[in-house]
């Protein structure tokens, strides 16, 4: 299939041929020809954001909740630079995003022209790959390659920078079927010998754990099904990183909760004491491992990852298996059955007895109050009142994010969108807009903090314009809560610049944009107000200002520089322990 058309037409045509239904963007001088083409067609719906950063986060939310590639269109110069945070976020969390940027005409490149910037130079380290297309004859191929690279292997963001003269020029369009990538062909199937070795280790395990991550979600729904099947076969305990929540159901009896810095007591101690660790699509991030020389010291480690550079990066593993999670788990389960492998039932029984003792610590316990809403309580109520609905949750970054991960149980993959690797405040709201575009009938809630929401609150206009019933549930404690918590732990409780004075009236703010504002101050009114939010009209966004206890801390917490078995529990820590939690060496760490 080849035909002649302009570069701008090719862009829209390629998007349509790649199955793109929604495009998040913001127009400007260097992309006007593409916007002109957008105007004259109906296949691709454009969503006008209010800042380009919002466009990328919206595309990320869209991608994470659907498994499809999110698409962004922005102009040159500031359009491209505003997109950089979102691109970096997508790179860290392996989200497939194609970002098309306009560029000044080729003859002006390098001239410091108006709204010129070196887009491919700036985005080179924050994308999986990028292209500057200088000839219209290359455009169709590059666009299709861009989609291929973004979604294949370990997914990630890509940028296609298109000068304005290339958008006007006429060339030959080729369809996606004619495009083959010459170098990038990631390996999907794992090495059978390594898989057999893994099966043997797992069958011999006395204290096993499955440590799962975002790779299970990225591999597709089948990977989550296979993970559940593997657990049915083995009854191994399962924990997950922040990015992997939902791959295994929170109601499952093998579920330990999230692990890591704010993970559960049982999950972290299981990790510390295990003898066989099966890491499935996770990358031994520093939030997970804690002190590396005390990380799971007596364990053999199996690591399934599609990205060879993740192997032995932070932690040396015994059995690396390079491949896509779904392919590897399928082969692993098949090998397990073929070999007639069985688990060590006696040892596993003792292991589970130990785990139950750890669980009995009830590490997420907090002191509830009748006068003031505790943030944990607010999330528990939100979860209880939404669990029977078709719900998608996004978050911003901070305490509320960790509480959401701890208290909101996820049963299915792709239901939880959060900024893990980069930790981008301002991610959640635009992301929720992307999710709602993809799932117009579903309940989409951005669990937010009062500081984070202000980073992209301008997207209220977008939500109102597209009549999106996104709910923004702000745990408003008037602080950048996690910053304040760290200042308390690390810096003698000197609350430097983390008090958010002069906060807006969020109810009026919502109304000013044309949305609905709700405020809850007292625990007694919380349920009714949440129900009011859930039953709000289906064509307007809601901002819910949940006024919570100002100084609550997020526990459990593994202080910087400490090991999994040195975690602080909320119910047990005294002021003094908080003061002494982090040693001088730990203070230099992030």
């Amino acid at each position, binding site marked *: 299939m080849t035909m002649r058309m302009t570069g701008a037409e090719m862009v829209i045509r390629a998007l349509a041929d790649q199955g793109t239904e929604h495009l998040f963007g913001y127009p400007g001088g260097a992309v006007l020809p593409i916007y002109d083409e957008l105007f004259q067609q109906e296949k691709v719906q454009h969503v006008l954001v209010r800042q380009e950063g919002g466009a990328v986060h919206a595309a990320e939310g869209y991608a994470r909740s659907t498994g499809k590639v999110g698409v962004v269109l922005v102009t040159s110069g500031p359009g491209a630079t505003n997109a950089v945070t979102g691109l970096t976020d997508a790179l860290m969390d392996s989200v497939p995003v194609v970002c098309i940027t306009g560029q000044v005409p080729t003859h002006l490149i390098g001239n410091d022209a108006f709204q010129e910037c070196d887009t*491919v*130079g700036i985005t*080179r*380290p924050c994308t*999986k*790959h990028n292209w*500057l297309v200088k000839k219209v004859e290359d455009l169709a191929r590059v666009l299709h390659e861009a989609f291929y*690279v973004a979604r294949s292997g370990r997914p990630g963001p890509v940028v296609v920078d298109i000068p304005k003269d290339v958008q006007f020029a006429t060339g030959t369009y080729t369809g996606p079927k004619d495009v083959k990538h*010459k*170098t*990038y062909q990631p390996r999907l199937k794992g090495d059978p010998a390594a898989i057999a070795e893994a099966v043997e280790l797992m069958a011999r395990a006395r204290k096993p754990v499955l440590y799962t991550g975002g790779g299970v979600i990225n591999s597709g729904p089948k990977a989550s099904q296979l993970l559940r099947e593997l657990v049915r076969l083995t009854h191994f305990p399962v924990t997950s990183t922040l990015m992997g929540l939902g791959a295994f159901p929170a109601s499952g009896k093998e579920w330990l909760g999230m692990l890591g810095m704010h993970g559960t007591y049982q999950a972290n101690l299981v990790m510390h004491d295990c003898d066989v660790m099966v890491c499935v699509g996770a990358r031994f991030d*520093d*939030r997970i*491992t*804690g*002190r*590396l*020389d005390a990380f799971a010291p007596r364990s053999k480690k199996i690591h399934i990852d599609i*990205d*060879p*550079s993740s*192997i*032995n*990066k932070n932690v*040396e593993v015994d059995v690396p298996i390079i491949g896509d999670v779904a392919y590897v788990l399928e082969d692993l389960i098949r090998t397990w059955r073929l070999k007639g492998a069985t688990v060590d039932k006696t040892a596993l029984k003792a292991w589970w007895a130990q785990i139950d003792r750890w669980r009995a610590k009830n590490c997420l316990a907090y002191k509830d109050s009748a006068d003031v809403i505790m943030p944990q309580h607010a999330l528990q109520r939100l979860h209880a009142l939404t669990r029977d609905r078709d719900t998608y949750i996004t978050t911003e970054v901070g305490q509320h994010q960790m509480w959401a991960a701890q208290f909101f149980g996820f049963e299915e993959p792709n239901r939880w969108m959060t900024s893990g690797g980069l930790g981008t405040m301002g991610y959640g709201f635009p992301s929720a807009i992307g999710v709602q575009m993809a799932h117009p009938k579903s309940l989409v809630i951005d669990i937010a903090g009062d500081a984070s929401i202000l980073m992209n609150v301008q997207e209220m206009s977008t939500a109102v314009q597209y009549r999106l019933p996104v709910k923004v549930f702000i745990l408003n404690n008037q602080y950048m809560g996690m910053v304040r918590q760290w200042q308390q732990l690390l810096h003698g409780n000197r609350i430097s610049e983390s008090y958010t004075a002069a906060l807006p009236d969020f109810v009026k703010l919502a109304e000013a944009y044309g949305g609905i504002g709700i405020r809850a101050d007292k625990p007694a009114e919380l349920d009714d107000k949440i129900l009011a939010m859930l039953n709000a009209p289906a064509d307007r966004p809601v901002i819910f200002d949940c006024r919570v206890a100002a100084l609550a801390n997020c526990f459990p917490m593994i202080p*910087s*520089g400490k090991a999994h078995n040195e975690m602080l529990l909320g119910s047990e820590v005294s002021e003094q322990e908080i003061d002494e939690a982090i040693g001088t*060496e730990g203070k*230099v*760490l*992030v």
Partner: protein
Amino acid sequence: MTNRLNETANRLNETAMSTKQPGSAYFLEDRKEVPVTHTFSVVVDNEPGVLARIAGLFTGRGYNIESLTVSETEHEKHLSRFTIVTTGTPQVLGQIKSQLERLVNVHRVVDLTVTGRPLERELVLVKVSGRGEKRIEALRLAEIFRANVIDASTEHFVFELTGRTSKIEQFISIMTELGLVEVSRTGIAAISRGPKGM
């Protein structure tokens, strides 16, 4: 190019050493492994920006570059070959290989030092000026080193010398005493021994 890269790499090294902790959230293990020097061959699509991609990977991740050379080696296929000499612990060298392989337009990465003692050569142009005894001595030594004279006047020579880095270093250090004016080096090109390609 090489020097600039070297500078950046050295600066990164200094930072890493001055603060005992790496810039990560937690202590990295005190790795007992000793850094070693390895030579990598990297075949890439000769596209605009490919050098920046590779150089950026090294600076961004704090790896060393001791020498980096590149040129197009297969014109019809637009393939270029990098020779990169780098120093790191075995774990870091493994990471360098994986990270290079991860770049979308990289075809192949071979650690030549792992596959066998590679042949490594560099070319140097050395300008020496002077008269009388020193001039004669410079020419005599150049002959011993099998350097070619590629430019000369009554006051100067430009020598061309190819060889291993140690030989080049030695030649330059001798010429320092004999009126060395300036030096231009290519950096190392390397290839594996034996009949097989990479």
